[in-house]
């Protein structure tokens, strides 16, 4: 599992990645609007999963409350846009520090008072729930009635203000996914990345090796939170609405982490692959159920759940590690 990313990307891996990226670049020219929307959702999950993976996959800190950073990102940028007309890219400059500060607060409380493992995960859920209930009752952000972004008729795409057609949103999220992929690639090969792996593998041994674990866990949480906030900004401007009940919901947190878990926690390709597998699976199930004339409510969710179970039981380290071996892009090892 780990060897595949500590090895340094092989040439073959780089070639495969280039082919995949080229295909994704060309996709809007080929696919219809429906498929393009599916691809946008896939890349959104790939991006958010990658951001979550920094904390869990690299530094070993399980967050089940990443909806907090998603929601904060979305709300900060959307409020700045609706109230002051500030463009989302500038809004992002405010959203990232806000999310990082929230992550720092949770991290400080947890790491200072030795809240670890499952209890840490519960703490992250608690803060996301605080935010959900808080925003639901906060009139400044329209409370439970939600925040709507003005949808104007646009003759051309306005990239600066993120107003435009699906193809524009597609390229934005594709670019972001590429950026976070490269960021994670370099982080993993950095001094900080090695220290994170040490903490993930054995925190006490990491301390005995001289690593200030508090400091490096804080760095992981803050980077992860800040990067996740962009997914929230994207979400807000793509869907044009924000409801606390939805954006801070635990289901948002869970759906973000399914991709990396299915793809392979701690790997670089896992979150990307997982997003394709999961969304692809959901779409395939929808088509299959329609084709067979099954019209039972919840049938899709049941099949989806069964498929996930099978993947997790058969490939507990995720789909990527065995696939990497098959493609000959990983290194030997687990």
């Amino acid at each position, binding site marked *: *599992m*780990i*060897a595949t990313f*500590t090895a340094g990307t092989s040439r073959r891996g780089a070639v495969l990645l280039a082919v995949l990226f080229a295909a994704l670049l060309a996709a809007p020219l080929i696919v219809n609007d429906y498929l393009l929307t599916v691809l946008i959702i896939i890349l959104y999950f790939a991006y958010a999963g990658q951001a979550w993976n920094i904390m869990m996959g690299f530094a070993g800190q399980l967050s089940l409350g990443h909806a907090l950073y998603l929601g904060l990102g979305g709300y900060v940028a959307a409020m700045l846009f609706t109230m002051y007309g500030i463009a989302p890219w500038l809004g992002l400059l405010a959203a990232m520090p806000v999310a990082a500060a929230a992550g720092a607060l949770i991290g400080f409380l947890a790491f200072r008072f030795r809240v670890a493992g499952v209890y840490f995960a519960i703490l992250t859920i608690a803060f996301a729930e605080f935010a959900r209930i808080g925003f639901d009752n906060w009139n400044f952000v329209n409370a439970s009635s939600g925040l709507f972004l003005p949808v104007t008729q646009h003759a051309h795409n306005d990239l600066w203000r993120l107003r435009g057609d699906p193809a524009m949103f597609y390229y934005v999220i594709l670019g972001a996914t590429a950026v976070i992929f490269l960021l994670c690639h370099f982080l993993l*090969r*950095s*001094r900080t990345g*090695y*220290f994170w*792996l*040490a903490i993930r*593998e*054995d925190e*006490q*041994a*990491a*301390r*005995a*090796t*001289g*690593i*200030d*674990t508090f400091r490096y866990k804080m760095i992981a949480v803050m980077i992860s939170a800040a990067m996740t906030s962009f997914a929230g900004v994207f979400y807000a401007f793509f869907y044009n609405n924000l409801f606390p009940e939805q954006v801070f919901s635990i289901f948002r947190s869970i759906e973000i982490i399914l991709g990396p878990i299915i793809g392979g926690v701690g790997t670089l390709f896992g979150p990307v692959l997982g997003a394709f597998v999961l969304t692809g699976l959901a779409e395939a199930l929808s088509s299959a159920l329609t084709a067979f004339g099954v019209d039972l409510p919840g049938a899709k969710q049941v099949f989806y759940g069964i498929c996930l179970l099978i993947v997790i039981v058969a490939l507990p380290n995720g789909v990527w590690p065995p696939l990497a071996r098959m493609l000959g892009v990983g*290194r*030997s*090892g*687990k």
Partner: protein
Amino acid sequence: MTALLTVDGVGKRFRGLVSVDRVSFAVPQGAIFAVIGPNGAGKTTLFNMIAGAMAPDAGAILFAGERLDGLTADAVCRRGVARTFQIVRPFPGLSVEDNVVIGALLHRRDVEGARAYAHDLLRRLDLFDKRQRIASTLTLPDRKRLEVARALATGPRLLLLDEVMAGLRPTETDRMVAILQALNRDGLTILLIEHVMRAVMALASRVLVLDHGVAIAEGAPEAVVRDPAVVLSYLGAEEV
């Protein structure tokens, strides 16, 4: 020789149980110093206090003139005291090489420099050919040497070894003894807790005997093993 490490009246109790009772000793610069004693004598507790894993209730620990007691384990390591664990704990999912690279990065910024240094250490500890293996797949003797390599990579002046010989076969013990002697010749001071008397006799220039948390003897290994109190409490009929 001046003392690199001074343990002065250090004590630790767990509830009512006195684990270490006002123990004092000094490890000279360049020495190999052994702490022996029966199970439950407080050796590992003493060791953990020096390494910063737990704080003593009483006394002071000085390393190169600086107080170590009260510092956290990572701060102790950064000051030049590296340790191994009685039950080995290399980073299990990482490669042998990466385990040592992490140690080497403590006082280095660039990963490639750390890797080059890690390679040197892996050669010294006979692990170079296994550097791509995942640590958890190694045999126990290999994992023990890997822990020593990782500890050395942090550039310590004092190396703390907690029963590094336990579970090794005699030939492996001799190999470890040779490695430690070579490191010592290069100027490394070593404090070891050890059960394997064969290794203690071969390595240590000075031995401290703990029993029920109390230091009952200290001196050259040959003298200590003939001390009647030591024989009674610990060595018994074991051949030396």
